[in-house]
């Protein structure tokens, strides 16, 4: 049994108004060193296969086919 920890984020070229708004709020709390705040999704799932390679293939396909939209999002994951 493996665990996939997946991060889906808006692509760098896409404006993230939610991130901007949150950053504005953080700055109003006094954290003026913060910049480039981006908000994404974190997905964790168990994959019941025998090898890390198989788990990687399944996680990769899941990201590509459903968990992210390549027009607007990037993904990365780790298998443990």
């Amino acid at each position: 049994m493996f665990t996939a920890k997946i991060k889906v984020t808006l692509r760098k070229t896409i404006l993230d108004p939610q991130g901007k708004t949150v950053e504005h709020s953080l700055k109003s709390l006094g954290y003026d060193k913060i910049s480039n705040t981006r908000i994404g999704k974190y997905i964790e799932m168990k994959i019941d296969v025998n090898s890390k390679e198989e788990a990687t293939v399944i996680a990769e396909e899941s990201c590509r086919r459903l968990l992210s939209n390549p027009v607007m999002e990037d993904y990365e994951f780790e298998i443990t």
Partner: protein
Amino acid sequence: MSAKVGVVVFPGSNCDHDAYFVFKELIKADTKFLWHKEGSIGDRNIIILPGGFSYGDYLRCGAISRFSNIMQDVVRFANNGGIVIGICNGFQILCESGLLPGTLLRNINLKFICKTVSLKVENNKSIFTGNFGIKEDINIPIAHGEGNYFCDDDTLTDLISNNQILFRYNDNPNGSIYDIAGIQNIKRNILGMMPHPERASYEELGNTDGIRLLNGVAESMN
């Protein structure tokens, strides 16, 4: 042949009855609902993907609907030249399905916007816009939180040069690239638009710009 309209119902669709009412009661077309679990659209020759929040908008708007049973047949139908109209959430589903290019991001101001907006008919040489004048201004309501149309520069260039942009906002409410409110595919049988023509179809409600679009599509089957 006459219009046989199928209005797809996903869990969370909420403009399905409005679309059904307009086609059935106002346009007097043969109209049926199609439940998302059905594997076939049957004898329908116009498919409506209605507005709403299919599958709760979980993950991304339209992302789960794309893999529903009925969508497999809708994609087949569309790829064979069948007429498909996606309104609001339906537009998001068409983008997720790859039937239309681009995607719909959160509105630039992060707000859900519900109001009537002014659109310019960018191209009236389509089965969807033949009842309008070129560059005519029409009023259609919007109601969405994720209607900010986005695509890369190459795709935008293609959309413009292929005359695929049918409607543009006169006063861009949501941040859409190039003020895009509605596009068709390159084969010109699929329309996706964020504004709701079915909500601008009753004289009693003071605006019938929307039914001109839906009527034109139904008439194209005669």
